[in-house]
């Protein structure tokens, strides 16, 4: 569904790359997670894939179309939910969807049905300028599936939503995927990624560090994580070490030799911890 080979992008048109030598593939029917801290280059990559940003260097094909020469027809097949909601604030929720659906050549979904799906029933005829942030976000999300996309780009679909609604959104994503929709999911939220994604890519400073399934990552790092509490200069310090990464093993040996250990136990790594271990960076 998506093929990316040696993708580079520089906003300043020089060697200062926001995205560097990124390559990956997303297969049909997959939920592919794009994980990384703020400024890693997630949105940049996604915007190149959807044609919002010009392709400077590299080869990209999306839904069977070469991104070098985008033809308008391609957009009938893809949908995108923006990180920052962008709807007409002077139109009502329903008017927004009614207008947007007319811009496609394919069969579109019923606006009322979509609004009900994202919990905006009863708010159809309210001007979105009077919507809360979360409501606008849900409308943007609903709009992204109006053309029954085969390939669905989701940029932070659950950020800023209350847990009940976030869980509804998660279910909608699952349902769409069950119907065969391929999903490219960009997020900070490791729990969502862990639960939804077939595979995840870790991206830092514009480079992909690793691509694997959450399951494999857990198998690899799962029980081999040690949480240690020790005392240094009179302070209690807590740290987590992998027992497979060489440098971690060294540090752990050092620690046991030099400090007084309070507690020490192995535990299952969360995706977030694996991310930190692999990339040496936190997610937020």
């Amino acid at each position, binding site marked *: 569904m998506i093929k990316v080979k040696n993708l580079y992008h520089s906003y300043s048109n020089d060697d200062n790359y926001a995205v560097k030598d990124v390559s990956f593939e997303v297969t049909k029917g997959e939920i592919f997670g794009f994980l990384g801290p703020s400024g890693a280059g997630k949105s940049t990559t996604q915007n190149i894939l*959807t*044609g*919002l940003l*010009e392709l400077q260097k590299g080869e990209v094909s999306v839904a069977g179309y070469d991104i070098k020469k985008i033809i*308008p*027809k*391609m*957009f*009938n097949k*893809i*949908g*995108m939910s*923006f990180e*920052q909601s*962008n*709807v*007409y*604030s*002077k*139109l009502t929720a329903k*008017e927004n969807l009614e*207008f*947007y659906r*007319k*811009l*496609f*050549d394919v069969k579109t979904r019923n606006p009322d049905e979509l609004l009900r799906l994202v919990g905006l029933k009863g708010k159809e005829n309210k001007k979105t300028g009077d919507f809360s942030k979360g409501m606008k976000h849900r409308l943007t999300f609903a*709009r992204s599936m109006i*053309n029954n996309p085969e390939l669905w780009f989701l940029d932070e679909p659950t950020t800023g939503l209350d847990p009940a609604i976030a869980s509804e959104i998660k279910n909608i994503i699952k349902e769409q995927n069950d119907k065969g929709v391929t999903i490219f999911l960009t997020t900070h939220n490791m729990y969502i990624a862990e639960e939804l994604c077939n595979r995840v890519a870790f991206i830092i400073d514009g480079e992909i560090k690793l691509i694997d399934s959450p399951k494999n990552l857990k198998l690899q790092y799962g029980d081999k994580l040690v949480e240690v509490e020790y005392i240094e200069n009179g302070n209690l310090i807590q740290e987590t070490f992998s027992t497979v990464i060489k440098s971690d093993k060294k540090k752990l040996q050092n620690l046991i030799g030099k400090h007084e250990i309070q507690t020490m136990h192995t535990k299952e790594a969360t995706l977030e911890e694996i991310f930190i271990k692999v990339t040496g960076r936190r997610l937020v």
Partner: protein
Amino acid sequence: MLRRIISIFKRDLKVNLKDFISLYIFVIPVLFAIAINLFTPGINDTTINLALLEGENPEQVRYFKDFAKVELFGDIDNIKSRVKARDDIVAILPNQENYYIMSQGNEPKGVIEFAKILNSFYQLDIQIEDTNVEIKDFKRTIPPLKKQLVNTAILFISILGGMLIAINIVEEKVDNTISAINLTPTTRKTFILGKSIIGLLLAIFGSLVLIFITGFTDTNLIQLLMIVFVSTLLSLLVGFIQGLNNDDIMNAAGSIKLLFLPLIAGALAIELLADKWQKFFYWNPFYWAYKGNDAVLSKTGSWKEILFYSSMVLILSTVVYLFLAPKIRKGLE
């Protein structure tokens, strides 16, 4: 493509009809027309109005109709009250062997002179072919103020079209919705065309309303619309650019006001400056548009002339377009 253009236009219209500022822009042509009528009373027409007695001398009526707008009345009393009405109309009435002219007293001198001359010509049996010189000469004596005001107002309305577009583009920018449109099969060209329609329609309908209310109904509408169309193109371009460059409706509308400068300069140059200065205004599309409108409104414009003026406006606007197009395209990314 057409379906999408219409959808974009309908959306703009829906938003504009609910918004105070754009609603105000919609009614400005009507306000202009009313203001022009108020400020230039008595000059309702570029032709002369004559009141005659019905059935008194049909041959004379036929003759006068070639040169003036003739109204027929059954008796002298009706004619009297008609002449007393606010606009400039004089009566030519029989007086035994001869004819006399009845006027209200406030008509321009030229109107009376014209009626006298016309009457003499009729009696001397001078035909329309012989009288060309006199007719043209007379035209200059009609106060051209109303025509000038209508002409300027038409160009002004075309600029309002640009303003409306700027307002609608600012809306898309502030709501950040252009990126959402870019993710549909809507091409940039379709989007630009769709967004242009409302400005173009405002210019066209606004001009029509204006000339109907101010009484220029008998001008050649196709010629008029041609000039309106080409002169609006420039305003639309500027509307797009200012919409993309501003995040605030008032700022965008404000920068479009800059267009009034060349508009006024063009109009003043034509009306006030001697021939030798004219060439310094050839770069100005409004200069040619004003000339074109003038030819249409005074009904002296041949098609060749109108086409020439329109082409000049079009060529100059194209130059501006070539300069601005990359910026517009970039702004829509």
